[in-house]
């Protein structure tokens, strides 16, 4: 021991102390920790625990003192080691000898709180919260991994992850897959074009025969052509033209009939209630009323093109009891419009059956009693025109022109007359120009002949420069006598009514000072041969015996009377329409002073009723107003009472009707 001392003396202060310190430190580190831990354990236990194999010593032994000096020198260390020094070229003893002797080493599982490893672990545990600072730290320590961070911005992670200890067993995988559109297959196969087999044989004699046959056929044809060439050609031409016409006809024409039928069926359904009323409804309240009656509104007829046009004439078809013709025009002098002629059927209120348009307003129309499709019309421009319901042509079949002597003022009324001796159809017209004219349809022409000029009393008037001006009355209405076909009445704008005959063209049979204003209608009684009725703008309806100059009855209706009509079923019943929108129905047999029914039927306020007509068969009326509305009205039972048959009265026919009226007349007169 003394030997090595001097040798080690020179370098003694450093190595031994270092080594000793180090060892001490390690001891203190590990030892203190373990001691602390144990201590805590021991104190926690509260009792001194002794291992079983510990020496059992008495107190004396324990108190015995052992003195021992501890030195830092390793007693087992060699003290005489020499090594060859190349520098000095000799062996030299090595002064420094390792004094350290390790007796026991054990790796502990405890770490000091402030050691690097502990710090790392703490960082890791602190988790997400601490992650960012670490990242920053990682970035701060760029120098450690400069190559990776260069130009690869996305990868600061490797550097960071190098520090972060990842748990290999705790990860989640994320992935998405895009949707694959399903595949579909579609196939189609077309039909192959149709094919046909064909077989024949060709050789010289077959060819020859074919030529022969064809040649003979041609020759025969040629002969035929020479024989009846012209006639056949014409026939063929006609046929061709026919086919052309057929093909030209619209496809719609083929289904026209079906469509018409269907339209009527639809209308029948939609207006079923009205149809039921028309057929069966009788106003039950009539029994409790004394004499009064009512009018039940049935169908209303309208047509788009006829809106705002005035109804200027209503005529029932003499043959078809559901068909009637309506003329549309305008009574307003300032607002003249186009005109319209429409045929309506009760079976189809929604649309007219036939429509004819005219350039000028239509003021009157009449259907031929024997040819119910023939319609003559008087126009505002003074012309008269003839249409046929079944015509294909658009315009009129006949129209008067200045050359054929048309009227120079509006034609106010037209009326068919009996066919003349040559069976040509003819009709009469009256106009504001003071003429009553007869028109005859001869082939394609209208031939006119003035029947009478309505000269006023006083004859021609002296005009300026010595010209004589004819002083003519403006005819507004006329009616031929039912039996004496030469006899007719003409109503004028001046209020006078003339009884004329076709036999005298310059003389009146009688003049009635009928009204103070324009006469709108003159009409003979359908039963009684001497009775006629007039109505006028002076608010009155008058009934006359044509043999007397004074009226038999006068009714004041408090408004201009646009039209009046005798009923077809009774000689004493008539109806009149007024400008205040009312229909008045009278039966002289029941009440000679007041109307049995006075009812407002105008569809709109302020609409003036212009015309009225009785259906020849059914108990209904048609009423038109100045806005183009047409209404059909059913007469209640009180309005169509027929006279009671008295004790087997001989004839309930027309004669009875005449007698009935006669009786009333005698009462009055």
């Amino acid at each position: 021991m003394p030997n090595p001392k001097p040798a080690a003396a020179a370098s003694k202060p450093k190595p031994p102390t270092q080594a000793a310190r180090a060892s001490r430190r390690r001891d203190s580190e590990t030892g203190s920790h373990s001691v602390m831990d144990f201590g805590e354990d021991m104190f926690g236990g509260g009792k001194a625990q002794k291992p079983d194999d510990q020496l059992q010593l008495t107190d004396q032994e324990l108190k015995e003192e052992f003195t021992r000096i501890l030195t830092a020198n390793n007693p087992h260390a060699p003290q005489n080691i020499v090594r060859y020094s190349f520098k000095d070229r000799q062996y030299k003893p090595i002064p420094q000898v390792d004094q350290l002797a390790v007796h026991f080493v054990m790796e502990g599982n405890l770490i000091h709180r402030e050691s690097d490893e502990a710090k790392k672990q703490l960082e890791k545990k602190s988790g997400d919260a601490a992650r960012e600072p670490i990242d920053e730290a990682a970035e701060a320590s760029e120098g450690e991994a400069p190559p990776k961070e260069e130009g690869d911005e996305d990868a600061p992670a490797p550097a960071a992850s190098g520090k972060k200890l990842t748990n290999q067993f705790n990860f989640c995988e994320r992935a998405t897959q895009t949707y694959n559109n399903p595949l579909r297959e579609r196939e189609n196969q077309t039909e192959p074009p149709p094919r046909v087999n064909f077989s024949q044989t060709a050789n010289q004699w077959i060819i020859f025969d074919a030529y022969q046959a064809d040649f003979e056929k041609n020759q025969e044809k040629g002969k035929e052509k020479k024989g009846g060439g012209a006639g056949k050609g014409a026939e063929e031409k006609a046929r061709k033209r026919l086919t052309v016409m057929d093909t030209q006809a619209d496809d719609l024409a083929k289904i026209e009939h079906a469509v018409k039928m269907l339209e009527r069926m639809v209308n029948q359904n939609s207006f079923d209630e009205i149809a039921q009323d028309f057929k069966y409804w009788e106003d039950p309240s009539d029994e409790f009323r004394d004499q009064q009656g009512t009018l039940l509104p049935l169908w209303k007829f309208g047509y788009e093109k006829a809106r705002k046009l005035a109804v200027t004439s209503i005529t029932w078809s003499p043959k078809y009891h559901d068909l009637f013709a309506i003329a549309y025009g305008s009574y307003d002098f300032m607002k003249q419009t186009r005109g319209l002629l429409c045929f309506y059927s009760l079976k189809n209120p929604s649309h007219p059956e036939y429509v004819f348009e005219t350039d000028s307003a239509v003021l009157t129309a009449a259907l031929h009693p024997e040819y119910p499709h023939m319609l003559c019309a008087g126009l505002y421009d003074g012309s008269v025109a003839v249409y046929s319901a079944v015509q294909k042509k658009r315009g009129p079949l006949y129209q008067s022109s200045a050359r054929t002597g048309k009227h120079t003022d509006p034609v106010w009324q037209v009326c068919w007359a009996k066919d003349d001796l040559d069976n040509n159809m003819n009709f009469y017209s009256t106009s504001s120009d003071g003429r009553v004219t007869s028109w005859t349809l001869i082939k394609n022409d209208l031939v006119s002949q003035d029947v009478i000029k309505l000269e006023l009393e006083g004859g021609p008037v002296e005009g300026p420069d010595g010209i004589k001006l004819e002083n003519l009355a403006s005819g507004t209405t006329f009616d031929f006598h039912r039996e004496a076909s030469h006899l007719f009445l003409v109503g004028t704008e001046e209020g006078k009514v003339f009884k004329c005959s076709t036999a005298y063209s310059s003389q009146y049979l009688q003049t009635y000072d009928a009204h103070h204003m324009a006469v709108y209608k003159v009409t003979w009684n359908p039963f009684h041969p001497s009775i006629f009725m007039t109505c006028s703008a002076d608010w009155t309806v008058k009934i006359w015996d044509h043999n007397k100059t004074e009226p038999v009855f006068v009714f004041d209706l408090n408004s201009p009377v646009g039209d009046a009509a005798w009923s077809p079923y009774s000689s004493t019943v008539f109806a009149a329409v007024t400008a205040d929108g009312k229909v008045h129905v009278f039966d002289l047999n029941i009440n000679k002073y007041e109307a049995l029914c006075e009812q407002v039927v105008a569809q709109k306020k302020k609409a003036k009723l212009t015309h009225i007509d009785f259906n020849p068969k059914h108990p209904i009326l048609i009423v038109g107003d100045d806005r183009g509305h047409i209404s059909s009205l059913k007469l209640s039972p009180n309005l169509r009472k027929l006279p009671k048959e008295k004790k087997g009265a001989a004839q309930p026919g027309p004669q009875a009707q005449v007698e009935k009226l006669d009786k009333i007349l005698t009462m009055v007169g």
Partner: protein
Amino acid sequence: MAEEGEKKAEESRRVHTYPLVRYSDMNEEMRTEAMELCVTACEKFASNNESAARMIKDSMDKKFGPAWHAVVGEGYGFEITHELKNLMYMFFGGNMAIILWKCA
């Protein structure tokens, strides 16, 4: 009487050369065109039926779409399958039979 018969025989012996369409289900327009084409081809290649047939076939292919077939000859028999409305069988020149049809 004898004279008349002779005259008739003479007439019948006369050779007809006009084109005679024996059978055709083509429409009017096509038939006229095809017939005129056949006449032109046969006149052009009077001594070479093959060339005439080729000309007819090629022209029809061009005008009405492909797969036309034509046979030109003086004596032959045939059984063919054709597309409807695309067949013409005609005689020409008194001794030539031409069958023209389309079948794709």
